[in-house]
């Protein structure tokens, strides 16, 4: 899977309360959730993300609550992939389960600037910064996780495995 797009940059410890504030958790429509993505840090995010972006962040991205609405809001807002130095584990699992690719890469803060054109190769585990003409190693996803992403998320993956037509 190859994903490309412009980087939108955030710093360390971006928590799920700023990704999608809890007052919106009563919303069931993913497109409505998306309108409030990252509202806690950048109220203009939705407009920025709509054409499709790659979110680049520092350490511990997605820390805090288990709300799956966080990766859902990002995905439906237009985020095609999240690159971070590390992820909070529940966010990481949730993102994969709903089919939002996530990849760990060292020193994102030093290597990627806001607006850089990026290309991510998930299978082979690298990130290319086209603007800076540099390629970085990233953590390769294990095959069964790659499979969940390829299927489009855990629901589709399970439907296939359980043989649901």
């Amino acid at each position, binding site marked *: 899977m190859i994903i490309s797009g412009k980087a939108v940059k955030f710093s*360390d*410890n971006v*928590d799920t*309360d*700023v990704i999608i*504030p*809890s*007052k919106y*958790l*009563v*919303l*069931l429509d993913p497109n409505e959730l998306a309108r409030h993505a990252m509202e*806690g*840090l950048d109220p203009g995010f939705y407009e920025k993300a709509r054409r499709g972006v790659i979110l680049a962040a520092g*350490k*511990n991205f997605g*820390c*805090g*609550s*288990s*709300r*799956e*609405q966080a990766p859902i809001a990002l995905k439906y807002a237009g985020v095609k992939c999240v690159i971070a130095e*590390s*992820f*909070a*584990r*529940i966010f990481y*699992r*949730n993102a994969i*389960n*709903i089919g939002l690719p996530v990849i760990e890469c060292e020193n994102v803060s030093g290597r990627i600037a806001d607006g850089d054109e990026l290309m991510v190769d998930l299978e082979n585990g690298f990130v290319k910064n086209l603007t800076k003409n540099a390629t970085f190693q990233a953590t390769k996803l*294990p095959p*069964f996780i790659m499979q969940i992403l390829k299927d489009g*998320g*855990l*629901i589709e993956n*399970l*439907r296939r495995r*359980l043989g*649901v037509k």
Partner: protein
Amino acid sequence: MNITEKILAKASNQKTVSPKEIVEANVDAVMVNDLTGPLAVDSFRKIGAKKVWDPSKIAIVLDHLAPASSEKAAELHKILRKFAEEQGIPGLYDVGEGVCHQVMVEKGYVKPGALIVGADSHTCTYGAFGAFSTGIGSTEAAAVFATGKIWLRVPETIRIDVVGLFHSYVTPKDLILHIIGHIGADGAIYKSIEFTGSAVRRMSVEGRMTLCNMVVEMGAKNGIIEPDETAIKYLRLESAEMVKSDPDAHYEKVLEIDVSSLEPQVACPHSVDNVKPVSDVSDVEIDQAFIGSCTNGRIEDLRLAAQILRGKNVKKGVRLLIIPASRMVYLQALREGLIETLMEAGAVVCNPTCGPCLGGHLGLLAEDEVCISSSNRNFIGRMGSVKAKIYLASPATVAASAVTGKITDPRMLEA
């Protein structure tokens, strides 16, 4: 193997497991609440499974927005009640039963050696009883509803040996805040934290739950304490599987902490690892004080608060909100006369719910307001306005601060 590895090995039918290995484990219980459950129901339907794998192992707790704080919240509750009925799930804990993690323990889902997952990040709380428990998302919970299984990466374990005697009015909450300040918000991502040592052995179950509850604030997968008589008694079990770490178990790191010199700690805005001793932040004026949540809304916490507030008054201009973590806690507090003491001091006592802990309802903050809270998170916007400030502390520090109107060392008030 250590206790976490042993539980994961058993749950995945293996003799041994080692860190980084990915296992497929059988789940003993799964929990969803009113904010994560409806999405799980939706995912369950999309998976196309007709029946849940075992209705008796599923708990649904209506706690975050209970009673319904809006029409939309009422809809969420309705979805869950209907699902429980349709699937014959006996464990639907409706409005008023309490915060999910307290309810899970009280209703018998938690046992030593069990593997429990829940669509709530503080599911790690049950490690206090020697269970492996961790938070997952809604779709994963739906997958567990359908299959009873989950994949887990075996975590590396950090052992924390806690020794010494706590000063009076210094609590396990102060200890865990101190540890988080030391390790950092991302210092234990994907890892397990095992608490050992004489101070943990002496600690009440309530205190142990507070410790394990907050390990997720350092990114940890689970927190765990070997089960003992204290834990078994609290659960009212006749017998239990007393799973323990082997003497030669492997740990990534071992830390030792002596609590004898620990003073009350406060996590300052806007991150849980921004921890300072209370003396560094005394004089910060507050508008609201909150005692409750799955971290510190238990009977021991209410006793401590009542002890401090007995015969005193909440400072004019300050709101003190008290929310018992469950119906059982509330009833016990009533029987002990604690509710009366707290109300006489000027506190507002609400029904068991998460309430303001996550900015749901019952005490949100306006712009520039300051709250001191016994809960577990102080992120931007967590309790209302993105311009409000949240300080986290023990129930003793929160109660003392409510009396003076400023962040206060509870030991000063006593003098």
